[in-house]
């Protein structure tokens, strides 16, 4: 897995209400949800982001509500992956279950600026900042989560492996 894109930075404790406000939860349509992605953190985000771009956040990204609409809206906005110092646990589960790639890196947030182009090379456990010419480690995806990704998400996983 390798993702290359421009970085959009967000701070610590970005909650799922900021990622997709509840006023839009009367639908689960990915295209509708994508229109409001990150709206209460940055109302201009959806107008600025390009397909393949990467969200880079401080600690505890996705805290709060269990709404799967949050990773759905990010994926719908064609963000390729999210890198953060840490993720809230339900958001972490949801992302693997529905197929939004997410990565934990302590260093990336501190060493990248908004607009930098980075390459997340999950197979080799490296993030390369192409703009700045530096690289740092990314935490490996735990084996069970890797299996989920390989199987194509949780539902495909249980279909394939029984339970």
């Amino acid at each position, binding site marked *: 897995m390798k993702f290359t894109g421009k970085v959009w930075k967000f701070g610590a404790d970005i909650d799922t209400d900021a990622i997709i406000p*509840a*006023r839009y*939860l009367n639908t689960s349509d990915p295209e509708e949800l994508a229109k409001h992605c990150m709206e*209460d953190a940055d109302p201009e985000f959806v107008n600025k982001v390009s397909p393949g771009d990467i969200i880079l956040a401080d600690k505890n990204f996705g805290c709060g*509500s269990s709404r799967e609409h949050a990773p759905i809206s990010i994926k719908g906005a064609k963000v390729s992956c999210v890198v953060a110092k*840490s993720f809230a646990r339900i958001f972490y589960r*949801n992302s693997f279950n529905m197929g939004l790639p997410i990565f934990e890196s302590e260093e990336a947030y501190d060493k990248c600026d908004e607009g930098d182009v980075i390459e997340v090379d999950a197979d080799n456990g490296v993030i390369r900042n192409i703009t700045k010419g530096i690289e740092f480690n990314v935490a490996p995806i735990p084996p069970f989560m890797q299996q989920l990704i390989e199987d194509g998400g*949780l539902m495909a996983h*249980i*279909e394939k492996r029984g339970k």
Partner: protein
Amino acid sequence: MGMTISEKILAKHAGVEGVEPGEIISVKVDIALGNDITAPIAIKEFKRAGAKKVFDKGRVALVPDHFAPNKDIASAEQCKILRDFAKEQDIENYFETGEMGVEHALLPEQGIVTPGDVIIGADSHTCTYGALGAFSTGVGSTDLAAAMVTGETWFKVPESMKFVYTGKLPKWVDGKDLILYTIGKIGVDGALYRSMEFTGPVIDSLPMDDRFTMANMAIEAGGKNGIIAPDAITKAYVEGRMKRPPVYYASDADAVYSDVIEIDCSKLSPQVAFPHLPSNTRAVEEAGNVAIDQVVIGSCTNGRISDLRKAAAVLKGKKVAKYLRLIVIPATQQIYRQAMEEGLFDIFLDAGAAISTPTCGPCLGGHTGILAAGERSLATTNRNFVGRMGSPDSEVYLASPAVAAATAVKGVIASPEEVA
């Protein structure tokens, strides 16, 4: 090596002798829950996987409570997805508007969740049922879909943090203040991925409703679950109520904790969480002069009968401040009726409050009390994130029912001491 209560419940449901933190296990699920926001996606995934029948029609609970009674056409469509699925699958625990309550108040009240259970819910506040001594945690819609098919889910066994509440609770300080203070102390990710076990002499005499409030907000510290070992108070609540026999677990004396945090409650004041994080807490006396436009008393955190009694005790014979809206939302139909029979509605109505049918409503900015730009609400709910109750330019302050009632009377954030 001893085990914590959470580890024991997980081991039992995984069919093994013992589990250790970090281990990934597959467990049997006693109850799988969804609501009108999360279940439609789960139902879509269930159908997409080609599943025909839920694993057990008595162990799935569907509660349309967030945007119900239907707030708009799109919400009506979402609720209809639940209703149609409930009919098709003959789901026993489906609650139509009229029997519906806020899910985390409703399920314990109806005896659907039981001590010793493993419960997952596609709602982050599913951790509430830990107050009964169950392992209960929030998941997403796809996890719910998988559990509806298989009756199982996977967990990474969490490390446990032990919170020991000592001393004596001062007047006006309750479970809401304890949990707000705790979140303020450790931060919104202070318990990330971990189990929060609430113990100590203060918990030993804490009423059931306050215990639900505490377990409910474990997620606000990032916790996987909040849990309180069952005791005489739990048993008194459970007796004659539960649909399945309860199983009581307790932590071993030599159980291992990642942290032990002691909190002396004797000098605590009622707490207020300022915008925009539940951890941004301070004592009510230090709130300063904050004018409030709307007060909400309700939600899965504080919409139970004792919450309404505490608010009514402060409001009795008083009037809500001019231009302030007080909205009271009993969390279930049973609580609604009880509040009415106890005369609490008279007190609320005399004070100038609006009383709503049970719903999550304004807590998540759904309906029945949305804020305009520049407005401030003090609420007994659980989150004060940007835009949580309406406009992204509004503010939410979190506090107990007693502080909420006092604030409604004064028009500024106030201690019950100033009013009663």
